[in-house]
């Protein structure tokens, strides 16, 4: 197998006394869509937060692009080419769609790149609805448009790895489908995706490989086609008991 773009091994994260992640190991290879699915409260958001450096980890190792990240800092992860689309979107509500996108290129501008206009046109081409609303405040967008803006903003940084936290959250099925189509299409541009989702079916459909996270531990993993038919996935969600 080729060198993974992201290699997380034995990661543990605690909130005070509560250990939210126990010895989690995952890998994402270039051009792959990898999904981490699991019920609410399984620790999926925590995993992305720790990988990105928003949360400190107590144990384990995060290797991004072949470099081990000691004391991961968000800014350095962004500079190295990781882009996180957070669960809560975290848009700049009182600023225009265009300014939100422009800030997505903040780190690239700092690093001396001047191609944000081009990238912005590509984002508008991917999400024509954003182009129509470029002057509008982000806070006035609908739920689906906000999610598109959050993804578009992350793409402005031209990430090598896109981390998506529950992009389907609170969205109607039609919009979920649209967003997942776009995520699937990203793969063709060479971006690797780590997709954290509760919506297991949608996620497994576009992913190459999947992990099932349950109460902070990887309960199952495998190629997504295998997981799609695995009854244990449903059990881990709806608690039918006898999971082992």
């Amino acid at each position, binding site marked *: 197998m080729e060198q993974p773009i992201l290699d997380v091994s034995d990661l543990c994260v605690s909130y005070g006394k509560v250990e939210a992640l126990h010895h989690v190991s995952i890998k994402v290879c270039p051009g792959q869509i990898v999904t981490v699915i699991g019920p609410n*409260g399984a620790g999926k958001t925590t995993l992305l937060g720790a990988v990105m450096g928003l949360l400190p980890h107590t144990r384990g190792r995060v290797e991004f692009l072949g470099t081990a990240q000691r004391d991961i800092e968000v800014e350095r992860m962004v500079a190295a080419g990781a882009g996180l689309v957070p669960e809560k979107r975290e848009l700049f509500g009182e600023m225009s769609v265009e300014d939100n996108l422009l800030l997505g290129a903040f780190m690239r501008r700092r690093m001396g790149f001047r191609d944000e206009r081009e990238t912005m046109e590509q984002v508008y081409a991917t999400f024509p609805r954003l182009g129509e609303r470029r002057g509008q405040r982000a806070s006035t967008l609908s739920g689906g448009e906000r999610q598109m803006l959050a993804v578009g903003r992350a793409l402005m940084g031209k990430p090598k790895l896109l981390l998506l936290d529950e992009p389907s959250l609170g969205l109607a099925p039609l919009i979920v*489908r649209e967003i997942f189509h776009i995520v699937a299409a990203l793969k063709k541009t060479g971006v690797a995706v780590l997709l954290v989702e*509760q919506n297991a079916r949608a996620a497994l459909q576009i992913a190459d490989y999947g992990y099932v996270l349950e109460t902070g531990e990887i309960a199952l993993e495998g190629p997504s086609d295998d997981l799609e038919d695995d009854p244990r996935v449903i059990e881990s969600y709806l608690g*039918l008991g006898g999971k082992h």
Partner: protein
Amino acid sequence: MGPRVVLAVFLAFLALGPAILPEFYVTLLNYIGLYGLVALGLVLLTGVGGLTSFGQAAFVGVGAYTTAYLTTTQDLPAALALFGSSPWLALAAGLLVTAAVAWLLGAVTLRLSGHYLPLGTIAWGISLYFLFGNLGFLGGYTGITGVPALSLFGFELADTHHFYYLIWAALLGAIWLTGNLLDSREGRAIRALKGGTIMAESMGVDTARSKMVVFVIAALYACVSGWLYAHLQRFVNPTPFGLQIGIEYLFMAVIGGAAHVWGAVVGASLVTLLKQWLQDWLPEVLGTTGNFEIIVFGLLMIFVLHRARDGLWPLLAKLVPEGAGERTAVPAAEPLSRRAPAPAGTVLLEAVDVVKEFGGLVANDRMSITVKAGEIMALIGPNGAGKSTMFNLVSGVTEPTSGEVRYCGERIDGLEARRIAQRGMGRTFQHVRLLPAMSVLENVAIGAHLRGRRGVAAAVLHAERAEEARLLAEAARQIERVGLAEHMFAQAGSLALGKQRIVEIARALAGDPNLLLLDEPAAGLRYLEKQALAELLRKLRGEGMGILLVEHDMDFVMGLADRVAVMEFGQKIAEGVPEEVQNDPGVIEAYLGGVD
């Protein structure tokens, strides 16, 4: 050597002080006592209540100027003549004026975010300073001279040594009163402020009132200090009541240790002695005169906030072994009266067509649920389905846009959380909100807040011990009921998360509810802890309690609940017994999602 011995040695030193110390040190101790009294108020306000004030010097000024004016002015208007006839009556007048001013300042700032009170006190401190300096009848910047000496039972306290005993009696008295207050129902309500407004209000505490109580008490201590100062100095001018001195008072409290009454004494001593020494030493070193000690104080303060945010007292307290003073037993007391239990099967909670919109977003769309006495109802749904919003609507944290919430037939939507608690609904929090430094017993006793009546006046004098004993006994009973008797006197923060969640349930039970609202009680618990929690909830159900559970953990919910309601996109998509819900295709779809 236990704390009692240390206290006895300290008191003996204080009692003998004037006999063995040179005059200069007695004077210094007088000032430490005066400053300590003001700092004590700030301990209560800042360390305990989580508020702060830079304007305490102005309250000292009110106390000093009131007595100076009343006791030196001839021909007072008739209404004031009585107050002017004795310094002790002038003290009463000063306390009244101070309480009124503090109440007014509190009324306009305490409902706003926490930083408005300190900003308000800065403005107040400056205004009052200029007012003192410019009002003709207060003597302008030269001030008022000829303030009479105090006399006590006909004995004139004219010299430093006599005054020393009065000052320290006042300070030790205030420490005693403060200690009493903190160890009471009202005191727990004040300490609960640090657990967040929502928690305190949900336990029935009127947080605006509790904040007002500490602010007014802090101002009154400052006023007494000012009154003592005026009669010690025998004259007043505006200088000691300016904003800068107000800031120094806060430094004393923070450096000494704002969370403990003795921190005030430590801070006042340290700052006073340091100031004395720096005022001699710095001008020599720097070769020019000026109050350069403020540079050192400023830097010291920053250092303390960086490195020892709790101040010096906790560091000093470590030197003294723990011992007496910690509670180890709960006295037996007559049980508190209980509300009438609801017969099993009666509808307790009923939400009808509740809608909640945030901006354009509909978080809850015509949601209806009921909870009956003696049943466990679970509310589940994927992330972002609107469960938390529903929980907040029912518990009074937010108001619905439309629809009705009824409790035992009475409309409760729009009521404040504490009024809902009063009607017999208890709740826990998703992120445990206990006060980690307080004992389990005291934490649980906060939940019984509404079952006591006695106020601040009774609390400071400990005249409410009978009621307090009943409240503590009730708290102890609830702790036993949930099976945590062995941890009753442990610090809540020292318990594992699973036990902390159960302490929260005991706290809710202490309010004698008929309905319990539990917000993700199983989150973060280990398997055995979940088992224990489920066992407890079954037991409570058996005793006729209605329970509404918002939960993620399916194993936990499905094995426990009598009925389950499932939400998605703010709406209820299914309701029924666990087996029905588990096999409902719509529910499976909602959880696993479906994209064709």
